[in-house]
């Protein structure tokens, strides 16, 4: 369960997000939808504890992210905006490293890594150094290392951005699998059809504020359009004007 309550964040003159609130519940996929520069990444960075909000608060399963950062981070598996890997380490070493940072016991580390490697279909690359990995292979490593500690809440910042069809499909399968395990999944995207297909709840963010939220059908009603994409464009533009 992720609760974001009225957070605002300003960088100098730019108000990146203004009074953003949202809830993501267990066993549901919540989509944070918005055009580029709408404030999605800023909101998520506040959520996973890397930015301090000017106001408002964020809790993960009841733990305050700002005041108890490590405890809250332990409850989250995060795919951040940046996807950097260590080129001289293998995929499996990346997964183990993050597992150790989370305090996963050594005797469980191997099995948990194997399970993720199977789930993400990356057996053939698991023991290769990540230097020269394709975009899709890199994304799989990032996802696996984010999930190694079996978090109850998963936060993914644009998990399908720049991926090919096969990997995108794999990522979607992963999200549905997490949902089936009663995990909270919150992910951001600027792709309408993806959000429409996967999400139980949608939050549309534009120019730093939430402009609409609800189920796919509810969003369509709010905008008064049949097509979700048209609804998205109308809502985003309405806010920018």
């Amino acid at each position, binding site marked *: 369960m992720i609760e974001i309550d009225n957070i605002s964040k300003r960088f100098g003159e730019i108000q990146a997000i203004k009074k953003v609130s949202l809830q993501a519940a267990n066993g549901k996929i919540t989509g944070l939808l918005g055009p580029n520069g709408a404030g999605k990444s800023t909101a998520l960075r506040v959520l996973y*504890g*890397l930015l301090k909000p000017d106001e408002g608060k964020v809790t993960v399963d009841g733990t305050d992210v700002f005041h108890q950062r490590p405890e809250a981070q332990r409850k989250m598996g995060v795919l*951040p*905006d*940046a996807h*950097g890997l260590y080129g001289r380490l293998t995929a499996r*070493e990346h997964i183990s*490293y*993050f597992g150790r940072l989370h305090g996963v016991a050594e005797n469980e580390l191997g099995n948990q890594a194997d399970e993720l490697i199977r789930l993400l279909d990356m057996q053939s690359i698991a023991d290769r150094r990540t230097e020269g990995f394709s975009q899709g292979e890199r994304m799989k490593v990032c996802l696996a290392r*984010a999930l190694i500690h079996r978090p109850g809440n998963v936060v993914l910042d644009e998990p399908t951005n720049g991926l090919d069809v096969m990997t995108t499909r794999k990522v979607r399968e992963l999200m549905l699998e997490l949902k089936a395990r009663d995990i909270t999944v919150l992910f951001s995207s600027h792709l309408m059809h993806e959000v429409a297909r996967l999400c139980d709840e949608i939050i549309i963010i534009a120019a730093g504020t939430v402009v609409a939220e609800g189920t796919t059908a509810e969003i369509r009603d709010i905008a008064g359009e049949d097509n979700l994409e048209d609804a998205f464009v109308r809502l985003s533009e309405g806010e920018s004007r």
Partner: protein
Amino acid sequence: MHAIKAVFRKELIDGFRDRRALLTAFLFPAFAPILIYGLIYAIVNLSSDAENLKVSVINPEAAPALIQYLQEKGVEITPFEGNAEQAVRDKKQEYILEIPEDYQQRLREFKTAIVPIIHDSSRSDTRNPVRRLRTLIRTYNGSLSALRLIARGVSPLVIQGVVSGNQDIASEEQRLISIFNMVPLYIMLAAFIAGMGLAVDSTAGERERKSLEPLLVNPVLRLHLIQGKWLAASFYAAIGMISTMLLSLIAMLYAPLDDIGFVFSISIEQIILLILATLPLPFLATSLEMLLGIFAKSFKDAQSYIGLVTLMPTLPFIIHTFNPVPIQDWMYAIPVFGQYLLMTEVLGAVELHWLAYLSSGVSCLLLSVLLCMLTSRLLAREAVITG
């Protein structure tokens, strides 16, 4: 603690696989003994008379006694004819000794006979042989003058008011001592260079390859992240420093120092003391490099700042060499300078109080810990992610 261990372990592996950084780190220790041996060898050979002088002489028949004297001193004489100045200028001859036609006549009349040495003083390779030749002629002049005085019933000592002894040897010794001071400098440079690659890669490198943000979402204190990285970089720096130290000492042991009557010896106890004295240095060096690394946005950016850091160990060397100050007890507590003092004194077999080791070690490590804390504060800045 588990986080520090995890970071340390990962950085150690990452650092070991970074062949380019490893090569630059350990090229330095590899060159140290070669450089030190080479310098000692050069100084020893320039000063010793082992190599014979070869002198081209114009008109050697005019001064048979002088020529015979030179030959007795091991000088090889080759007669020369032609334009001496041109030959030296064209580098066909290194230097030429000219015996004037009126040499014998002037000697008979008890006048001064001048024997010019034609040479090019801007050429550093001929400076030493010319100096040696001049010294030989001066000595010959001395014995000739003595004979003249004796012939007149005067003791030659009359004209020897004050004589300086061993003038040449003294200057060679000084040069050797400056090499002995260079060894500590080299050891300190190694401490600053050997861990640099990993220190920069694990700070500025993390930012550059955008792996910092994923790292920071882990439930780990920033200080623990920095400490793990710091210990790993210090580990490589310490290995680099100690191998430079051992190789330099071996080079000194095998250098032909006894050819000029200089004795260098070192005991196991001294080596242990040296390691003890210098071990805090790698920790300070890497903590400083990591601080600058986290400031910088890219690897290249960081390297230009850190180039300046490597100048730091040369400071005590410069101060000590050009402006020797009397050493007082508190000076051991100055980081870097304290280590430098300890090294020179251990090498010179000076017995030191354990407080000197303790104060230099504690102050150096304390400063490194403070720098690490500062680095972890910088890591908590939002600009590290957004900037």
